[in-house]
Every structure is written in structure tokens, then in C-alpha cells.
């Protein structure tokens, strides 16, 4: 047992810069995944059969195959077919957005279904059009119900983002491995990476609690 953090010190800024890369990556995937997931959930509860069918099939495929496989397909296979090289970061973001949208759409669908049907009837009886009813009456209430589940999904996304290191994106994980390889010492940089991920997740958890409390003001 000989841990030597002194040797790691010069490389710490290099690893910490990965936080920025990871955060960018997570933030973009999260926003895209949430928007696309909301659209999919509306397809699922909607009356248009073909869209419902599409959203169900979509969810089934993205939940039914490994994330890393999806990412490798998008990163290596898409350029092979189309000749367009989209780069590790974009491929990663695309994969994570498409994948988490499948999960998020299920969470939102459940949230919408859990809103009392009297809410829809009251809005209908007031002559409120469908779009307005969804955006201003149903979704805000659904969102409040699903916040904990959504936070869970975001935390998973943050941690799972480490697999973009496989396609060479320079996130925290990849940087820790590079430092490990160049020093022939893996324990210390990986420990640091673990600590950074843990702190990121804690920050997300806290943000979720604050949001929950703010949404609870109408209780």
C-alpha cells in the first residue's frame, strides 16, 4: 500500500478541466433529452396512432440495447455510412440525448397520467385549447410529481457520461486515465475522478431539493 498523491499534483488542473467538459456534455444532453422526451411523451398520450406507435417503438429500442453500443454505432457507424465525421463530443451528446429521452418520456407520461382527469375536464369546460391546457395546466402539475424521478435520471446521466471516455472525449474520466497511464499510477487519479463525480451528483441532488421546495409552495 503506497499511495502517492504528490506525484498527482501537477496533473490535477488537467483532470479538473474535465469537469467543464463533463458539465457541458451533461447540460446539453440533459436539455435535448428533456425536450425530446417531452415530445415523445405527448406522442404516447396523444390520439395519433402512428406517432404513438413510433414513440413506443423508439422507447423499446433505446431501452432495449446497451448505451455503449448506441454510442459506438453513432460514433463509428454513422461516419462509415454517410462519410460525415461528427466528432466524439457531438456523438456522445447525441447518444445521451436520444437515450435519456426514451427514459424521460416514460417518466413524463406517467406524470401526466397521474394528474387528476378533472383538471383536463375543467380546462376543457372553460374552452381552453389542447395546447394551452397541456403547457399551462397539465405539464406544470405533472412536472411537480415527477421531479424526484427526473432528478434520478439526471444523476444517472451525469455518472454514465463517463463512458464517452471510450470514444476519446476528454472528460474527467478520460483525463484520469491518461494521467494514470503516463504516471503508471492509476489509483490516485481515479480516486480524484471519483470524488469529482460524487460532488457533481451531490450538487444535482441539492439543486433538486431546492426546486422541489419551490414547487411545493402551492401545497
Amino acid at each position: 500500500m503506497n499511495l502517492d498523491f504528490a506525484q498527482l499534483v501537477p496533473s490535477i488542473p488537467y483532470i479538473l478541466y474535465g469537469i467543464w467538459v463533463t458539465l457541458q456534455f451533461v447540460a446539453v444532453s440533459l436539455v435535448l433529452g428533456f425536450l425530446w422526451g417531452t415530445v415523445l411523451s405527448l406522442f404516447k398520450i396523444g390520439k395519433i396512432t402512428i406517432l404513438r406507435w413510433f414513440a413506443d417503438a423508439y422507447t423499446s429500442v433505446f431501452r432495449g440495447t446497451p448505451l455503449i453500443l448506441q454510442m459506438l454505432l453513432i460514433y463509428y457507424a454513422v461516419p462509415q455510412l454517410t462519410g460525415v465525421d461528427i466528432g466524439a463530443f457531438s456523438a456522445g451528446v447525441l447518444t445521451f440525448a436520444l437515450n435519456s429521452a426514451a427514459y424521460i418520456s416514460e417518466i413524463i407520461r406517467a406524470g401526466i397520467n397521474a394528474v387528476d382527469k378533472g383538471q383536463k375536464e375543467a380546462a376543457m369546460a372553460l374552452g381552453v385549447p389542447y395546447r394551452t391546457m397541456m403547457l399551462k395546466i397539465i405539464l406544470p402539475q405533472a412536472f411537480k410529481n415527477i421531479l424526484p424521478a427526473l432528478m434520478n435520471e439526471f444523476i444517472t446521466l451525469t455518472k454514465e457520461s463517463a463512458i464517452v471516455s471510450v470514444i476519446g472525449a476528454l472528460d474527467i474520466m478520460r483525463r484520469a486515465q491518461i494521467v494514470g497511464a503516463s504516471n503508471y499510477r492509476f489509483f490516485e487519479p481515479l480516486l480524484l475522478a471519483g470524488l469529482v463525480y460524487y460532488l457533481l451528483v451531490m450538487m444535482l441532488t441539492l439543486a433538486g431539493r431546492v426546486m422541489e421546495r419551490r414547487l411545493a409552495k402551492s401545497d
Partner: protein
Amino acid sequence: MIDVQGLKKRFGNNEVLKGISTSIKKGEVIAVIGPSGSGKSTFLRCLNLLETHDEGSILLEGKDINEMELHLRKKIGMVFQHFNLFPHLTVLENVTFAPQQVLKTSRNEAETVALDLLKTVGLSDKANSYPSNLSGGQKQRVAIARALAMKPEVMLFDEPTSALDPEMVKEVLQVMKNLVKLGMTMVIVTHEMGFAKEVADRVLFMDDGKLVEDQEPAIFFENPSTDRAKAFLEKVL
């Protein structure tokens, strides 16, 4: 004002309305009573297209309601048994929501109207509360104000006092009586026989999806002409 002809409605194989025909004149107050499962609520919900009927026709001022969905609902207000206030909006926002979103009324104007309505239902001081902080009776009064904010020509009430504690029934009925005095056209599904007797111009007695009696309240309550109505009144009075 509203003409209903041969109205039929099925849920799967279960026929809940078996040919209802009646008409409602402007300014009339109609009480719809009958045992549970008799189709009262379904009948009411057909009037503003919360349920679509399978056969027959409903005309509002001569026009088929199937062809005027959103427009119809602007003209017809509805109050539900379980209030259905929007829990994430304040009382004031509940009342101003539809005028702003549907009628495109300015926020200022909508709030002026809303505060005025809240005053008439006795809840001026609750404008900024959330529904979860109100009693059942207060919620229902807000729900009435919310429906009135759309300036409807007809008000539908679906058992407005059935979910209330007994001591709160009176305050809601009082608000409804005030509406009657203002000449509002009202269709009220209710179990409050005393109230029906007092304010209704006509009583529709429904049983098993049929309109069994259509009568003035004085006659209906004193001397019902059918055995079904007699049996029902014996149980509830």
C-alpha cells in the same frame, strides 16, 4: 335556448342515456334529480361535449353543438362535484386564466372582473391563496367564480354540494341562489331536494337513462305522477 332531441349515449354495451328529449329556455333553472347511475351527470356532460352523444341532437340557439366545440364551451360554464380548481395557480389566477388564455382579455381587465366576482362569492380576501388552503365550500365558490369569469350564457352544475361537509353546503347554495336572482340559465344536477324545490322552475327526474318526469317542482314534490318518482322521493325526503 337548448333543444335536446332523442339523446342516446352508450359506454361500451351499457346504454346510459336511452333517448332524452327536453328543451331549456333562456333564464330557466332546471334541477335534474334521480338515483345514482340514472344518467344525470352524463346528460349534463353531453350538454357541453365533455361526453359526445351517440344518437339524437343537441341544439344551442338552433345550432348543432357538435359543430361548435370551443365556441360552445365559451358560452356554457360548468361547476364540478370535485371543484377541479387548478392547484398550482392562486385563486385569482384560477379565475383569470381562461379569460386571458381563451378570450384574450388583458390581464388588468381579467383581474378587475375576477376580483369583482370573488367579492360576489365572498372571497375577496382569498385572492392570493392557493386552493389547498381553502375549505371545500370556499373551493366551490371559487370554481363558480371561475366559470362566471367567462361570462357564460348557461351554467351547468354537476352535484356541486355532494363533496362538501354539511356545514359548507349552505354557503355554496347561497351563491347559486344569487345567480338565480340574476336570471342565469342553470342546469343543476343535485341531491339537495329542498334547494331544487325552492329555486327550480322545472324538475327533470331521471331513472335508468330515461327522463321519467318533467314537472314544476311544486307538483313534482307534492304529487309525482310516476311510481318510480314516488319511490325515489319516499327514500330521500
